[in-house]
């Protein structure tokens, strides 16, 4: 049942594998060589940026990415099960992350190389510092900061709004820099 996974880096439009059903907002910036695979639908909200070579795999379930998100290079978003993977709004996913989570809350930033275990649920406005790992099935409450080896603390700095604004500025900047190849994925 599972369709063959696309080779990484192969432009989807030229690939022989069928794309999963995509429902992508017209304001989304889709870069070159994004890999969409799987059979479940993939939904992407308004004003979101997908960097080149990020991989969205909906073999096991649907993927929903909210609005005003950034998904960086070499990051894999893999739906864990039929309930799918939901990214809230204002989610920043940095380079080289592996995300197998069930839910990532609004305003969360997942930094470089973080690994999110299967079906874990991340709350709103969390920060996962570089190279941190979240075990399978873990539930992180809102405003959790994961840092160091296994340290956690609650973020009471009240900077969530400021970070969302920074993210918007970041998106504006990327929209000027990255070429939009959205037409390649229209089928």
């Amino acid at each position, binding site marked *: 049942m599972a369709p063959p996974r696309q080779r990484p880096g192969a432009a989807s439009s030229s690939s022989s594998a069928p794309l999963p059903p995509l429902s992508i907002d017209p304001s989304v910036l889709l870069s070159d060589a994004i890999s969409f695979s799987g059979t479940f639908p993939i939904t992407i909200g308004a004003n979101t940026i997908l960097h080149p070579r990020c991989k969205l795999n909906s073999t096991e379930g649907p993927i929903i990415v909210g609005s005003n998100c950034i998904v960086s290079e070499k990051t894999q978003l893999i739906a864990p099960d039929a309930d799918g993977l939901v990214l809230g709004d204002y989610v920043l996913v940095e380079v080289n992350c592996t995300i197998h989570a069930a839910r990532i809350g609004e305003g969360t930033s997942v930094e470089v190389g973080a690994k999110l275990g299967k079906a874990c649920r991340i709350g709103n406005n969390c920060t996962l510092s570089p190279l941190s790992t979240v075990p399978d099935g873990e539930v992180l409450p809102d405003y959790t*900061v994961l*840092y*160091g080896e296994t*340290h956690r603390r609650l*973020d*009471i700095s009240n*900077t969530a709004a*400021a970070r969302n*604004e920074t993210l918007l500025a970041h998106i504006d900047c990327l929209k000027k820099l990255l070429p939009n190849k959205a037409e390649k994925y229209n089928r």
Partner: protein
Amino acid sequence: MSSPFPYIHISCPCNEERPQLMAVDSARPISPTKSPTKRDPSVGLPDPQTPVQRRGLQPAVSFGTAGSSNGDDDENLEDEDGENNFDPRDPRAAFSLFPIENLLYCEDCHQIRCPRCVQDEIVCWYCPSCLFEVPSSTVKSDGNRCTRNCYLCPICTALLVVMPVTHSPAGTASDTPIGPFNLFCSHCHWTTSDLQPPIQLEKPTSISAQLAKLSASPQDAEFARLKQHYAQQLGNAQEDFANSPAALTRLMGLYAGLGTGGAGRKGRGVKKLEMKEIDRPREVAEEREMDAVERLAKAGLDATTNTKQRISQPHEPRFLTELKPVAVLLRTKRSKRCRACRHILVKPESKVQTTRFRIRLVALNYIPSVGIKRLDPSITLTSLIPHKTHRFLLTVTNPLFDPISVSLLTPRFTPGTEYPSRVTILCPEFEVGANTDVWDDALMSTKPAIPAMTTGATSAGTPRGGDARLETVYEQKRNYTSVVIEVVPPEIPDSRETRIRDDRLLEIPIFVRVEFEAEVDRDDDDASGALSKPSLSLNTSAGTAGGAASSASSAAGNPLARERVEYSYWCVVGIGRVGDPVEGVVASEPNTPVRTPVGTPVKAPRTPGVAKTPLRSVRS
């Protein structure tokens, strides 16, 4: 030693109980007029345990490439002393073993210098975060922390940034952000507003000054109280401390009084300064303690600091809400001097921003380095198989611009343990090419010296069956040569004693002796000895190696005199750990006697165990 296998540590000569200045002579050119230097016995001594000797070779062949008959006589005189083997398990040895990367080389002493025998001098203090150089007077007055705007997060030790407390919407953001400000950790999102009471600053600059005003912990008040008390007492006795001859006599009197057990206090008109202790050294406020207990009951253990955080802060905070931002510790740039001759070995550029060095005499550029790797990739270094012959490739790399001839000596059995392993270097003498330009080798045709050298080594080594390549130089390239070393570990029982002494750790001491021809040092005052040398070395080296002989003869004709220089050091090769015996592997060669036969005095079994190894006697 905790480093992963294999490791090679070089023994700095400072581990021997000889005066450093005497050891200086060791690297001097051998001259027949000079008396043998301190290092000479260990250099040229035909150890009964060396494999070369066991094979029945003449000492003149194995060691005497440059040694004269004169040297041989001296060697015989000192021969009865069998204590020349370097024992890596000797307690004293551990202080002097360093990887070659950690070693420096003194050009004037011609000697390796380890971190123990160099002297550090601070060139400058600087903040690693803002790279601002801090003058030493400020360090003395204000402490060794950055006094500008560099602060670290007390939670995760990342650098803090200044942020306005109230977030102004993007539309209204003006060029100058409006206060108040707090310090924000962009890694773990800690801010100074999290504190109780929150620290908020009016200005985004000169943070240290603002924080200094804010910090008024009970500890600070206590310190101020103590300081005032003692300053008052000091003020009463101020006239005694005036910079006068009387004050000096008084001080000297104090010391004299200490020396004679208080008897010096009477008479002589010496007045001892009487200081009164403060009445209540520490004030404990009852309410504050109760408050802390209540807070702990409310917030739980998660709100308390860990030991590291408590120690790192002067006011010993108990709760996370009491932590303060920590100013960045300053770092230093240091120059290093040789302790023996006071010459500078390392001198960094005094500007903080540059990472260059003005002087940097690292040992890697001066002494040939030894490397080791497995010849058979199936060997697992952490569990060597007892009774099996493990072959390793020992590579000597030459950093010098002159070709060198190398002799490697090793005890036949590893010393310092009750379970010695048998070690054989199959080709202990060989040549290593000069460290010439990489392209020289490629542009020139093949060197004729290499085959000549190889045959010479074959004749020197005992003919044995098997691969001829293993018997001779295994590989020879531009500036490195590899030879084969065979190790046969013994069977070691897994008992408590062997674990305590770590008998399974297999360390092989190897004595590396290097000879080469170098241009005569013009500063060398010992000119006569230097001049008489080339002819001598020409005679002795002619028979051994073709390459060396040709270079020597060309040097003899050269008006620019060249001299024979030798250098030697002990190194310790940590090969690995001996594993459990494996079925089917029996002693393949007649090498199993753990106890050596009678008549071959090997030092190791006589002094078993690292704890019982006596310190080497001082040789005058």
